[in-house]
C-alpha cells in the first residue's frame, strides 16, 4: 500500500471514533435539549418566534467561528467547546421541525383527542408526537448530517476529529490525507443519513418493527465506531503527568510537535501531541495549562500578543517578550530553537550570481528593473514598509499570489523576486537564494519554545527540552519542511530527521550578557573558544570582526557544562528568562 495512505489509515480508527463520539453526543444532547424546548414552544405561541429566530441566528454563524468562539467563552480547548458549538449548531433543524411538526398537525384530530377525554400528556404522547414523528425525524436527519460535516472543524479548537486528516493534509500538501478525511466524514454522514432516513420512513409508515431495526443499527454503528476508543479507556491511561505538545496548522509546526514529543519520550516522559490548533487558541491553551509546550515565533508574539509595532534589536525583543509572557500569562519562554521563520526576499540563484546580489542592500539598485511577487498579506504588513524605506526598494511591479503559486511564478519567470518564508522547503527546491538583511529591517521571527507554568515547574521536562535549544538551524528546518512538502514523506519521518541532525550537531558556542556572566560565573570571563558568536542562536559576529560591546564572551561545550554546574547558575539564568542559547553550525 502507498505509505502515505497507510499512515493515514493507521490513525483513522482513532480520529473516526472521536468524530463519531463528538457528533453523536452533540446530536443526542441537541435532541434532548430541543425536544422539550420545542414542545414548550409549540404550547406557548409567544415563544415560537424568539426561539426559532435565536436558533436561526446561531445557524448563520459560520461553523468555524462558532467553534472558535466557544474557546474563550469556556476558557478551555478540546472536546467541550467543540461539543457545545455542535449542540448549538444542531438546534435549528430539530427545533424547527419539531415545532412545525406539532403546530402543523390537523386541528380536528387534536380536538378529537381532547374530545374523547385524553389528558395533555396523553394527547402529546399518543397523538401529537406519533403524528409529527416523520417531520421530527427529518429534522434530526438534517441535523445529523450538518453535525458530522461541521465536526471536522473541531480540530482547530483541540478536539480530535476527522478534521485532523483534512487540516494537516491541507497544510502539508498531502492530498491523500485530505481525501481520507473527507471520504471518512462523507461516509459517516451518508450512513447516518441513510439510517435516520430508514427511521423516518418507519415513522411515516408507522412501522414499529423497522423503526426498531433502524434504531438498533444506529446503536450498533455507535458501538462499533467507539471500539477503538473503548480499548484505550483502561484505568489510568490519561495521567496528569502526560505532556501535551501543541502545534499550529502548518508543516513546520507538525514536524516540531512530533520532534518535541519524540524528545520528551526519549527522556522518559509520556507525551502526546495536539495539532492543527488555531494560533491564538493554542497560546490560550498554553496559558491555561491545557497544552504544556509548543513552538511559536518571537515576532508573531511581539506583534500579535504584545501589540507592538516597533522593531527593537533581536536580543532586546526576546528579553522583553520573555518578561512580558512571564508576567502577563505565566508562560515561560524557555529559549530559542535556533532557526527563524521570517519573511525573506528570495530570488533565483542564477539571477543572484549574475548581478552579484547577496543581500537587500545589493538588491536595491536593481529593483527598478525587477518585479516582486508575494502572498496575500505581505504588502500590507509593516515588514514590507520597513524594508522599502530602509533599503529604498523600488520594484517595477508588485504582484500578489497564492503562496503555492508564488513559487511557480518565480520559476516561470513571471516575477523576479518573491517574499518567501525563510524555512520553506521550496527555497531549496526552486534553487532560490535568500537575501540577507544587514540593516535589520525585518523583525526577528525566532522560533521560541514556550512552556506552560506547570511544565516549567517540572525539572525533568525543562532539562529534556533545554537540551534541544539552539540546535535546529534554518537549514535543518528547511530540509525537514522540504521532506514533507516536496518529497511527500511523513511527519514522523521529518521529525526523526530533525532529531538526528540535532544529535549529530555540536554546540559551537554560547553567549550571554557579560553583566550576567560576571555575576554568576566570573571564572569564565575572558575565555574564548569559537570565532563565531551567537546570541539567542543568531550569529552576531562574523569571523575576524570585533565583538559587539555587549556580547563579549564565547564558551565552548565544556565551558557550558562547567558553567551550568555552578551553584544556582541555571536557576539564576532561568529567573532572568535567559537560557543557554546556542546553535549547531550549519
Amino acid at each position: 500500500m502507498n505509505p502515505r495512505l497507510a499512515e493515514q489509515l493507521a490513525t483513522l480508527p482513532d480520529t473516526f471514533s472521536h468524530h463519531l463520539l463528538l457528533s453523536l453526543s452533540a446530536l443526542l444532547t441537541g435532541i434532548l435539549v430541543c425536544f422539550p424546548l420545542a414542545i414548550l414552544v409549540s404550547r406557548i405561541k409567544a415563544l415560537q418566534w424568539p426561539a426559532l429566530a435565536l436558533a436561526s441566528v446561531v445557524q448563520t454563524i459560520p461553523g468555524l467561528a462558532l467553534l472558535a468562539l466557544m474557546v474563550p467563552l469556556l476558557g478551555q480547548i478540546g472536546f467541550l467547546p467543540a461539543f457545545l458549538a455542535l449542540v448549538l449548531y444542531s438546534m435549528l433543524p430539530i427545533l424547527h421541525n419539531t415545532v412545525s411538526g406539532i403546530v402543523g398537525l390537523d386541528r380536528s384530530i387534536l380536538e378529537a383527542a381532547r374530545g374523547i377525554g385524553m389528558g395533555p400528556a396523553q394527547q402529546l404522547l399518543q397523538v401529537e408526537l406519533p403524528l409529527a414523528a416523520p417531520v421530527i425525524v427529518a429534522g434530526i436527519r438534517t441535523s445529523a448530517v450538518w453535525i458530522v460535516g461541521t465536526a471536522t472543524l473541531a480540530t482547530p479548537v483541540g478536539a480530535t476529529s476527522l478534521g485532523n486528516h483534512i487540516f494537516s493534509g491541507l497544510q502539508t500538501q498531502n492530498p491523500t490525507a485530505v481525501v481520507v478525511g473527507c471520504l471518512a466524514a462523507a461516509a459517516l454522514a451518508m450512513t447516518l443519513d441513510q439510517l435516520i432516513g430508514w427511521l423516518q420512513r418507519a415513522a411515516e409508515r408507522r412501522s414499529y418493527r423497522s423503526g426498531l431495526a433502524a434504531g438498533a443499527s444506529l446503536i450498533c454503528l455507535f458501538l462499533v465506531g467507539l471500539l477503538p476508543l473503548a480499548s484505550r479507556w483502561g484505568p489510568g491511561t490519561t495521567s496528569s503527568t502526560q505532556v501535551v505538545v501543541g502545534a499550529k496548522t502548518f508543516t513546520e509546526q507538525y514536524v516540531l510537535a512530533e520532534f518535541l514529543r519524540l524528545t520528551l519520550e526519549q527522556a522518559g516522559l509520556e507525551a502526546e501531541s495536539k495539532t492543527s490548533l488555531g494560533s491564538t487558541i493554542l497560546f490560550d491553551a498554553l496559558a491555561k495549562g491545557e497544552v504544556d509546550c509548543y513552538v511559536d515565533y518571537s515576532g508573531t508574539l511581539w506583534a500579535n500578543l504584545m501589540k507592538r509595532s516597533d522593531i527593537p534589536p533581536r536580543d532586546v525583543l526576546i528579553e522583553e517578550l520573555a518578561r512580558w509572557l512571564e508576567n502577563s500569562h505565566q508562560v515561560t519562554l524557555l529559549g530559542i530553537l535556533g532557526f527563524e521563520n521570517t519573511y525573506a526576499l528570495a530570488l533565483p540563484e542564477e539571477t543572484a550570481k549574475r548581478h552579484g546580489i547577496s543581500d537587500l542592500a545589493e538588491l536595491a539598485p536593481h529593483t527598478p528593473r525587477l518585479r516582486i511577487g508575494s502572498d496575500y498579506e505581505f504588502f500590507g504588513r509593516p515588514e514590507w514598509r520597513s524594508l522599502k524605506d530602509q533599503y529604498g526598494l523600488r520594484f517595477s511591479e508588485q504582484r500578489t499570489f497564492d503562496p503555492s503559486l508564488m513559487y511557480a511564478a518565480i520559476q516561470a519567470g513571471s516575477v523576479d523576486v518573491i517574499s518567501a518564508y525563510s524555512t520553506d522547503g521550496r527555497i531549496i527546491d526552486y534553487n532560490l537564494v535568500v537575501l540577507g538583511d544587514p540593516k535589520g529591517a525585518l523583525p526577528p521571527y525566532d522560533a521560541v519554545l514556550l512552556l506552560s507554568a506547570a511544565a516549567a515547574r517540572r525539572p525533568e521536562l525543562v532539562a529534556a527540552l533545554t537540551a534541544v535549544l539552539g540546535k535546529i538551524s534554518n537549514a535543518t528546518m528547511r530540509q525537514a519542511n522540504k521532506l514533507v512538502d516536496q518529497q511527500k514523506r511523513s511527519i514522523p519521518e521529518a521529525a526523526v530527521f530533525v532529531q538526528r541532525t540535532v544529535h549529530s550537531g555540536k554546540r559551537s558556542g554560547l553567549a550571554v550578557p557579560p553583566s550576567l556572566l560576571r555575576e554568576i560565573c566570573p571564572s569564565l570571563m575572558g575565555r574564548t573558544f569559537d570565532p563565531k558568536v551567537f546570541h539567542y542562536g543568531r550569529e552576531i559576529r562574523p569571523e575576524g570582526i570585533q565583538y559587539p560591546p555587549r556580547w563579549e564572551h564565547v564558551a565552548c561545550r565544556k565551558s557550558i557544562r562547567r558553567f551550568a554546574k555552578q551553584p544556582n547558575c541555571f536557576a539564576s539564568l532561568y529567573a532572568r528568562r535567559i537560557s543557554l542559547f546556542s546553535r549547531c553550525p550549519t
Partner: protein
Amino acid sequence: MMPERHTMVQLERVSKVYQKSAVPAVQEISLEIPTGEFLVLVGESGCGKTTTLKMINRLVEPSAGRIVVDGQDVMSSNPIELRRAIGYVFQGIGLFPHMTVAENVGIVPRLLRWEPSAIAHRVDELMGMMGLASEEYLQRMPSELSGGQQQRVGVARALAGRPKILLMDEPFGALDPVTRDALQREFQSLQKSIGLTVVMVTHDMTEALLLADRIAVMQQGRLLQIGTPREMLTHPGDAHITTLLETPRRQAASLERVLKPGQL
C-alpha cells in the same frame, strides 16, 4: 306505561362570549334534554350550535349559566373524566390516522383502563353493531376505509366507553346521499334500541326533521324555538324557521310531483 324520564342534560341560561369577539357566540340558552332523547340543534353556520354542543363536555367552557349532565354540574366535574363518559362524533370524523381501526375504536376503553380482553370484546361488539366485519377491518388504517366506513368507525369509537350521552357534530355532512341515508337510519334504530341520549348538530333541516325527537333551532347565539318535527312544520314560531323549512318542504313537494306524473 311511560318509563321514568329524568333529565340527562340541562342548560340553564348558558352564555359563551369569546375573548376576541364583541358578540356573544351563545346567549342565555336554556334546554332540558331527557334521557333517551334525540335532540338536534339546527341553524346556519356561526349560529352557536357547535359551541353549545362543545359546552356540554367542556371542550368549551361557558361564560355564564349552568350546565348539568347526569345530575352533576360540568364545571365541578373533572373535564377529562366527563369527556370519557360522553361519546363524541366529530365533524370531519377525526379518526387518529396513525392508529388502526381496532386502536381507534378501543381508545376510550383504553383511557378508562379496561382489561385488554374486555376492550377486544367491546371493539368486536361495536364492529358488529356498525356492520363492519371485524376480521376484515380491525387491522386497517383509517386511510384505507371509505368515507362511510370511516364514519361508522367514528360512531363505534364514540360508543366504545358505553356513554350515556352521545354528542354529534354534523356527523353525516361529508357523506354521499346514499351512504348518509343508510347510516342515518341505522343510527336512529341503534339509538332507540340502546336508549342513548343524543345531541346532534346539523345545518340540514331535512336531516333534523328525519332524525330528531325534538329540534332546537338557533340563530345568532339564541334559541329561537324548540319542539318536535311535527310542531316545527305545523307551527313555525319565527320567520327564520319558516325559511329554514322551505328547503325540505320544496323537496317534498318536488318529490310528490315526480310521483304523480299526471300533474306535470
